[in-house]
């Protein structure tokens, strides 16, 4: 699970090593990556919203 999260975070930043990528694509459960991606995106949006609300105060 942690490795999936790490990969998705890496994707968000756009940094990934070839070796890790090979692992991802051979472990092959695309749904897991997809779901994690959606969750992390939502978290990311929420984080930005809170940041903006905090900054606006």
């Amino acid at each position, binding site marked *: 699970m942690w490795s999936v999260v790490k990969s998705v975070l890496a994707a968000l*930043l756009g940094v990934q090593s*070839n070796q890790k990528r090979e692992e991802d694509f051979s472990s092959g459960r695309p749904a897991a990556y997809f779901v994690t991606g959606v969750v992390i995106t939502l978290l990311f949006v929420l984080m930005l919203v809170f940041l903006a609300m905090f*900054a606006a105060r």
Partner: protein
Amino acid sequence: MRSRWWLMAVSLAASGSQAQTNGWNMPVGVTDVSSDIYGLHMTIFWICVVIGLVVFGAMFYSLFRYRHSKGAKAAHFHEHTSVEVLWTAIPILILVGMAVPATATLKNMYDSSDAELDVMITGQQWRWRYEYLGEDVAFTSNMSTPRTQISGEETRGEHYLLEVDEPLVLPINRKVRFLMTSDDVIHSWWVPDLAVKQDTIPGFINENWVKINEPGIYRGQCAELCGIDHGFMPVVVHAVEEEEFDGWLAERKEAAEQEAMGVDREWAMDELVERGESVYQSICSSCHQAEGQGSPPAFPALANNEQLINDVDWHLDRVVNGVSGAAMPAFRSTLNPVEIAAVVTYTRNAWGNDTGDVVQPSAVAELIAQ
């Protein structure tokens, strides 16, 4: 070649930052907000220049050093995780560094406290209407550059396209609140020196604030495409000392009362036609054209228009109440009864529309007040 070009661009921009008058760069402006924005703009500009020099420097070094024609042998590395993490982390830090002052400036711009004067700005195709709320002073501001200058028949003046018949007059050192809306399409009221740019949206109201530090004449333009005369919709702000402003406002109030009195007397046809012609040229001619020929289908001709000639009440109604869903606005509150009477009289007697009708201001006032 390209690196030299880039350096030239940088030096051009830099020279812009030293001398404001040459019009290369964003104006520093005359409000605290505008100078904050200028500061932000220059900070980010220089950050971009530095990043650009580093990145393009590395690029051109590689291009020069590893030329195939000089027998360079290609290496075969294709990833390096720590370098990649580094060049992701550094931009994030730079961005945070940019975001902090930007946030502070933005919060300043949204500070709505303690405005001393409210001005309602209404965008209309293609003029601005200013209303000093609670002061009974309101007027429209039209571009005063003659069409002959635009067509080139006359030499263009210094403030070509950036001059108006009636500028917005504002006091310095007082916080002014702008309420902005529109009668037709979306316009955008912009004066660079005041760093105020805000859309005016039909049916909705926007707010903005300004506190001007120095007296002067500040010019701007409509910034949102709003139809054929979008380019001919300037904004001019006269910022004056506080006492001068108070005096001006009192004077305008009195003049408004005077004008209201003019409504009651009987006007002669010549008087009305003369006044009407100037109203027509500043308000109506942008659509219906200088000779009343219009530009159908959007803007019908007024000259030799049967319906207009035959039906004075209909004609008056169109001017007073406008035409729903079309470009023709209601001039009921934009023009005063004298102006409406004058312009209707003028159009009924110009360009061969020789009806001989005279519409009296008192009749218009009655129509409006019924």
